[in-house]
């Protein structure tokens, strides 16, 4: 049996009929073809499907599309405006916070939730906020740096560079 729903996604109202068992993530990916939201696991462990539901981060594999009826969803496709990257997206670009890009949309959405609640998070607070999102490429170091960069850009946050990241790869400090 199909159930009619109305969900506002990235500011645009969508009406559709879905099976009751359709997860929100599949509604976004398959019905709306918003494939930036990814599926990385089947146990809500990886966070690649994270979106914002009414502004709060949510793993879209944990919710049925019918449960999102009448609510507002923001996906990674809704973060930039007129081709200009959101400061969080730009932070990931500036600080090399992504490699293969698969976990990235979920990381950006989780970061958006964090920075909406805490404009000036410490390194520990950022790491704690990211514990629901797995990344296998970056070792998280540059994701943390990216979010700090975004916090500074968005909120004038005073977070400094990662205290221990005196990385000097670029200086080739040891070469003779």
């Amino acid at each position, binding site marked *: 049996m199909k159930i009619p729903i109305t969900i506002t996604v990235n500011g645009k109202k969508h009406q559709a009929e879905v*099976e009751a068992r359709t997860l929100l993530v599949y509604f976004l*990916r398959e019905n709306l*073809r918003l*494939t930036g939201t*990814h*599926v*990385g*696991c*089947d*146990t809500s*462990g*990886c966070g690649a499907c994270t979106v914002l539901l009414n502004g709060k981060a949510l793993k879209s594999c944990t919710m049925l599309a019918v449960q999102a009826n009448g609510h507002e969803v923001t*996906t*990674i*496709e809704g973060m*930039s405006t007129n081709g200009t*990257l959101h400061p969080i*997206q730009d932070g990931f*670009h*500036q600080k*090399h916070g*992504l*490699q*293969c*890009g*698969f*976990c*990235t*949309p979920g990381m950006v959405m989780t970061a958006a939730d964090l920075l909406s609640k805490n404009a000036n998070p410490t390194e*520990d607070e*950022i*790491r*704690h906020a*990211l*514990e629901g*999102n*797995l*990344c*296998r*490429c*970056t*070792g*998280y*170091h*540059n*994701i*943390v740096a990216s979010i700090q960069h975004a916090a500074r850009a968005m909120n004038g946050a005073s977070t400094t560079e*990662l*205290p*221990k*990241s*005196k*990385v*000097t*790869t*670029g200086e*080739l*400090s*040891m*070469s003779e």
Partner: protein
Amino acid sequence: MTYIGKSVKRVEDKRFLTGKGKYTDDIVLPGMTHAYMVRSPHAHARILNVNTNKAEEHPGVIAVFTGKDVAEVNGVPCGWQVDFKNGDTMKEPPHKLLVADKARHMGDAVAMVIAEDYATAKDAAELVVVDYEPLPSVTNAVDALKSGAPSVHDEAPDNRCFDWELGTDKAVVDAAFEKAHHITTLEYKNQRLVPNAIEPRSAIGHYDDTNERYTLYTSSQNPHLIRLLLCAFVLGIPEHKVRVVSPDVGGGFGSKIFHYTEEALVIWASNQIKRPIKWTAERSESFLTDAHGRDHTTKAEMAFDADGNILALRAKTIANMGAYLSTFAPAVPTWLYGTLLQGLYTTPAVHVDVTAVFTHTTAVDAYRGAGRPEATYLLERLIDTAALEMKMDPVELRRKNFIPAFDGIEQEGYTTQVALQYDSGNYQRVLDRALEMVGYKNFRREQEKARQEGRLLGIGFSTYIEACGIAPSAVVGALGARAGLFESAHVRVHPTGKVSVYTGAHSHGQGHETTFAQVVADKFGIPLEDVILEHGDSDSVAFGMGTYGSRSLAVGGSAIVKSVEKVINKGTKIAAHMLEASEADIEFAEGKWSVKGTDKSVGFGDVSLTAYVPHNYPEGLEPGMDFSSFYDPANFTYPFGAHIAVVEIDKETGKTKLERFIAVDDVGNIINPMIVEGQIHGGVAQGVGQALFEGAIYDESGTLMNGSYMDYTMPRADDLPSFEVDNAVTPCPHNPLGVKGAGEAGCIGSTPAVVNAVMDALAPYGIHDVKMPTTSERVWNIIHANGNGV
């Protein structure tokens, strides 16, 4: 140079950051159907009957295929042959696309259900009734060698796939042990890891019967190799009618190198049903079917004289191959492992003996580092353990035994006891820098103070070397590879001076679209945005060997440089004609061909245009500016480095906190430091994962017990510190960019550093060994088992 050596921001970022990346599962073809695999819940079972009637009748189901349907189709082949010591041929049982006789590991595919949509296929898969007769199974390689162990394959009743040895004459090694002052012995398991790229594997097969062409979209690290294996070995279809595309790929770490049965199945079945078929793994399937890594059981011994000089090393390893031979599996515990057991040390006698074994488990193959992390773990655990036993400083013990610095130009490469010649190295330098960063002398004082306070603070070292940039084709051919390991590149200069570069390497996070463009833009003296990199599509890229073994820049980048040089040489001919000068008087720099000693010059764009509008043109010269090259390296490259971990263990819980991680790596010349640094970070995180958290666990019935993200522990953001990374540069002497490779270094060096740090922390208890991963539970138990209850 404008770009080389600069941390240029990645050009590929924007599509990933805006949700516009295109991974295989994002692709929808007209008329596409969906496949779901029926997999064995048993590790070992005879298949008595497969009843597909109900599934076939289910609304929306298009077809159900079983092992009987593909009985005449070849299985997926193994790409590397390692024969027994006595000359007998490696045991190579077939790996059929769907099994008809027996399931040999949990997750072995029995049937494929194809339906109009994914949910229907999954529903119908539950209606396939498989009549299994469960059989005894064996998952541990040591047990599999015991007499009476269940056989995985009739072709190898004793489960031996091959045995192998390498190194100094065994008698010489044993004699060195006889006269040793001290022998350090470790017996351990380098546990099985699950690679866990966050993008699950996915494949779309499309047979187009109007032109009898096939297209395979697949989440692969090497689309051309998949095409070759698929066409020539599995399906026997004409290679020129098959296009393989690896679009954006969400991480690989080795697990997406191999040719998997599902790739062949979707292509084969799409010809049966004449419609495209998509298959995407669920994470639980990834755990069961992506090739795993490591799984070595090893006894290693190192002999020392009274001064701490290493006299000899001997090692015996039993390597678990899993139920089937994956594409490169035989190379991993042999030529990628035994050859690295010289390490950074002048050890005069080294011998390694390996037995490769079939078990009722998922296939094991290359996972980030592939053999080299296992070799490094062996050596570096031995060194730190020996230092503890001999009451020497682990740093001093290393210094004493390091191979002296050599550049490979003035000083010859270093020939090891285990078949390699290192290209260039300066091992002391990276260790010195890492010690400076950690503040070693201070640390020991802090540690003393901490110990007095009853705190468990530890430091661990790892100084590693690896062999990457694989590899000379003739060499690997002699070692059993059934493929060449060159790389191809095609540089197409357009009439307006814009450049398309086609590489056979494949980027799945490494940032090739930026790094390779930096190289080309610099060499041509043109803006970075005038260069675009194409990869991953066999229709546009002539050939390629793909990305693994940290080879993309060292091998693929060198092929690009060759094509770039061909462009410049042809440009010189055109420019000489345009400038009415002799070729010998023309020089190329900063995007211009100039007549030496004059201000007469023509630019890159002018020459490009002239090549395509050849009105006034050198006689006999072909128009156009378009060059392909193949580069086959002269040797492996040998990155090295020093990693230091600092941990503190909570006595109450056994939990290890990684306080600091210092990595000083030498990966040769660097094109983009930002990207290299990112590669090191990611590699270190995976290595730390093995040390502290990860490991596949099979129960006695052969069930993978931790096959999900709820059960298999990978490092999360709050498990790791910020890393402290630096580097040295010892250029590779034998490739044009002087680069060595950075993709695996972090993962190769880090694991033993962390485990050594845990042991150093536990040293006050006299504990020298804890099984890896050194989980809180294990550490707590071993502290308490020794009567040190808190």
